[in-house]
């Protein structure tokens, strides 16, 4: 029954999307397309316009101008509500209900829900199904957010900064859930300001800054896979080189240094931060 008419179109098509709050411009002509079944990362620093952008797609905010289609429809269309799952940035649940009761109540809101047990397992909540929501840790509460977003068996899921403020273990667990969603064939739109998150989860990313998309493509094509190798020379000046193959570069550098009988002080290998990528991109734009 599910719209044969709409299944051929991209999950999301955005052209020329603009939005301002009074005199403050949040989005200034954003274009991107999300294909069915892909994990799309919307990357950017705080205040870049990520949340505004997804809230327009979720139907929470109206656009000022541009064209936005979600599963082939206007984002405000009621039919979308049973086809789209939303994990908001910070959102509470009923504190006095247990996890299972909460998921069961949400399941009943949808025409074709997934089985509650299956959803609890998928979100990694089996162990705390009987606990009241107010006793959950931050990571567990986030899993409940995931569970509520996917219990309606949506085709498209929005995750707005799903791991912000998490410890590393909770982040890994959340990533596993997102990968499980992709394996189910869901389209996932993820906003994040963590480069590594986009890198390990997203098939494609768009980098948003000051309401504009600076770059779009698979993560490795955006320079995110390049490593920065830095050290200090004996006279104290800092040196750095960028490479996609740090092993070879290190081998070369250390061999040379040893041949000269020098030390490579403060030698470090780091992935460039998102800021480095931004800087590079903004310089390129300017």
């Amino acid at each position, binding site marked *: *029954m599910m719209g044969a008419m709409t299944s051929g179109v991209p999950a999301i098509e955005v052209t020329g999307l603009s939005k301002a709050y009074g005199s403050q411009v949040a989005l200034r002509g954003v274009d991107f397309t999300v294909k069915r079944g892909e994990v799309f990362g919307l990357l950017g620093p705080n205040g870049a316009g990520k949340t505004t952008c997804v809230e327009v797609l979720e139907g929470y905010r109206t656009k000022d101008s541009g064209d936005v289609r979600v599963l082939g429809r206007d984002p405000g269309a*009621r039919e979308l509500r049973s086809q789209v799952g939303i994990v908001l940035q910070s959102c509470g649940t009923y504190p006095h209900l247990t996890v299972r009761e909460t998921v069961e109540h949400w399941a009943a*809101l949808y025409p074709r829900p997934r089985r509650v047990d299956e959803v609890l397992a998928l979100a990694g909540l089996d162990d705390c199904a009987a606990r009241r929501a107010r006793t959950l840790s931050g990571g567990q509460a986030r899993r409940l957010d995931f569970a509520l977003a996917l219990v309606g068996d949506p085709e498209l899921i929005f995750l707005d900064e799903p791991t912000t403020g998490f410890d590393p273990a909770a982040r890994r667990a959340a990533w596993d859930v997102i990968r499980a969603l992709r394996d189910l064939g869901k389209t996932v739109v993820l906003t994040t300001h963590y480069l590594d998150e986009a890198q390990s989860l997203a098939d494609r990313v768009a980098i948003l800054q000051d309401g504009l998309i600076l770059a779009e493509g698979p993560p490795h094509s955006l320079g995110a896979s390049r490593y920065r190798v830095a050290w200090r020379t004996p006279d104290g000046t800092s040196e750095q080189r960028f490479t996609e193959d740090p092993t070879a570069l290190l081998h070369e550098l250390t061999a040379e240094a040893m041949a000269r009988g020098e030390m490579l002080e403060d030698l470090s290998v780091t992935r460039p931060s998102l800021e480095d990528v931004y800087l590079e991109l903004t310089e390129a734009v300017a």
Partner: protein
Amino acid sequence: MTAAVPWWGAAWRQFRLERRMFWRNPTAAFFGVLLPLGLLAIFGAVFAGRDEDLDVIVPGIAGLSIMSATFTSLAYNLTTLRERGILKRLRGTPLPTSAYLAGLAGNAVANALLQLVIVILAGRFLLGVAWPQNWGAMTVFAAAGVVCFTFLGVALAHAIPNPESAPAYVNAVFLPQILIAGVFYDASEAPSIIRDIAQALPLTHLVEGLSGAMIDGESVAANAVSLLVLGLWGAVGAVLAVRGFSWEARRDQ
């Protein structure tokens, strides 16, 4: 095309959920059930044996209970639900807004009825006040009060910016009304300026209607003006409740 979840089913399920949560929240259940009992006990002790005063406070506390169970609790609840983001989350589901609000309001109505029953029983068996003289008229006024204060409570929630300021807003509306509406004493002895203000307010008319029905056995027609005032306030509340509704917590920005 997709089989939508039926409206009544959604509203009923929301109502059942609200009831379950009400009984699980000890403070809500405690105040919901025991506040009218406590007030009756206190005033019963103060006015012991003074039948005229007891005849004033039983319908007065019945009116107060209806207002606190609907108006006060909805204003608080909606403000908190909005701030916690629960409203925003529900807005992203297929649940119709009207079904959600019907379930939420149904919960408030159930509490109002529960408290009304407690007040009547306690008035009869603890204070020795007679059974309500005109059950039909009492039901009409109780229903009008419930509808009126439910809408006004939802409307007030829109004006409250955050949960921290909710007590100030609610009490600014609630306390003066219970003081001048004749809940605790016979308002006909109050100065005329107070009486004039009180005459414009809904609680006064709810208490008048309840008092007429419960104590004096008056018909609905005898207090038709009171019913009209409640209806007008309810209509204003309904317009404000629907127009001002917001799923989202206000941000400073």
